[in-house]
């Protein structure tokens, strides 16, 4: 349907003046919910009718206002026939005031309850929304910092793996632990030592693995780690020199010197400086 044609069809005037049929009214109401311009056109006509009606206002009989207030003030009478309304109102006055007061009171109470209900609902919704925003902020923060950390790790790994100064030492299992294996990335320029656990058996809680650098035949502590750190690059203590690396099982926190009979893995540096 062309809305412009519809607006100009006279339906608005018919509707406003109460001359539209039931189905025309229903259709008009329906279309009004979808087309603000139809509502605007209706309003415009209503306003012109209204201002015209005000121009044409007539003085009202002075006694009418008093009669109306008498009728509504003291009774809620239901059926006032037009021929003799005051009499009928008076007859019903004695019968219905309780009901009308009760009704008014009920409506007033219901309105208050509804209003309070709406406020509660409003605040609940507002609170829920604030909570959600809060949670979202926290998640975002957590995501940002996690991403930051990951980025740093990736950068570090690129640097470690790709650097020409980095020596890769493949640690292989000993007779005691043939399946143990790990990689050492030793950057001889920065002296950084990184360890990637490939396969190390899980240890009891009171024990940890300890990495050693063998420098001129002497072991030097490079720090402890757990088997659970597998697949993660671990930054160990720095060392300027090393001919080989060894991993032993020590008590939790590490030992000042290695327990060599529990050596799990050993790797020699093939390409020495």
């Amino acid at each position, binding site marked *: 349907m062309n809305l412009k044609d519809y607006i100009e069809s006279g339906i608005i005037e018919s509707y*406003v003046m109460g*001359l539209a049929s039931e189905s025309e009214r229903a259709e008009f109401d329906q279309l009004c919910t979808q087309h603000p311009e139809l509502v605007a056109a209706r309003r415009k006509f209503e306003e012109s009718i209204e201002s015209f009606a*005000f121009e044409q*206002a007539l003085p*009202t009989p002075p006694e009418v206002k008093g009669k109306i207030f008498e*009728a509504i003030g003291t009774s*809620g009478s239901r059926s006032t026939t037009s*021929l003799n*309304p005051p009499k009928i109102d008076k007859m019903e006055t004695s019968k219905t005031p309780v009901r009308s007061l009760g009704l*008014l009171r009920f409506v007033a109470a219901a309105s208050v309850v509804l209003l309070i209900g709406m406020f509660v609902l409003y605040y609940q919704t507002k609170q829920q929304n604030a909570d959600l925003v809060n949670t979202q902020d926290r998640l975002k923060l957590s995501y940002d910092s996690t991403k930051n950390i990951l980025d740093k790790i990736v950068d570090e790994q690129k640097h470690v793996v790709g650097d020409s100064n980095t020596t890769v030492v493949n640690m292989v299992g000993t007779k005691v632990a043939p399946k143990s294996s790990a990689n050492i990335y030793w950057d001889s320029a920065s002296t950084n030592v990184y360890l990637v656990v490939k396969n190390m058996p899980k240890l009891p809680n009171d024990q940890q693995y300890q990495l050693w650098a063998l420098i001129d035949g002497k072991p030097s502590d490079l720090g402890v780690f757990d088997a659970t750190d597998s697949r993660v690059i671990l930054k160990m203590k720095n060392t300027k020199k090393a001919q080989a690396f060894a991993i032993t099982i020590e008590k939790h926190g590490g030992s000042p010197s290695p327990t060599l009979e529990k050596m799990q893995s050993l790797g020699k540096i093939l390409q020495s400086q």
Partner: protein
Amino acid sequence: MLALKERNNQAFGFLYDNYAGALYSIIKQIITDNNELASDVLQEVFINIWRKIETYDQTKGRLFTWMLNVARNASIDMLRSKGYQNSQKNQELPDNVYKGVANQTTQQNVDNIGLKKVLEKLKPEHRVLVELAYFKGFTHEEIAEMMAIPLGTVKTRIRNALLQLREYLK
């Protein structure tokens, strides 16, 4: 409770003071010849407004539009009531309604207010239809039968008449 009632009365008093004159005008355009009955209708209209105000739906139009239609419906109900017709018995028979309107002779004076004044500017065949539909409350079907013209024509003419009316009201 009392305060609530007083406030309501105050608001309703304001409503009456503002709108009664405009509504009385439309009532008088329908109940043209009996001031006493027109005054009764005005009273009934405001009592109805007071009682039915919660049925007013502002998404469907302005408050005045709603009140105007309450006034028009009450006036037409009165027009059709036995009491009114008895009081008119000696003046005009119901089936003479159309002739009375069409001739425009006897009703010249009372037609000189409000919308009826604007209707004068319309073509007679349009004016008559609006008279019957709006001021006498006949349905389109009743008018078609009464005037022996097709329903579609009644509808089209009334719509066109209302569109012209809109232009005059601007």
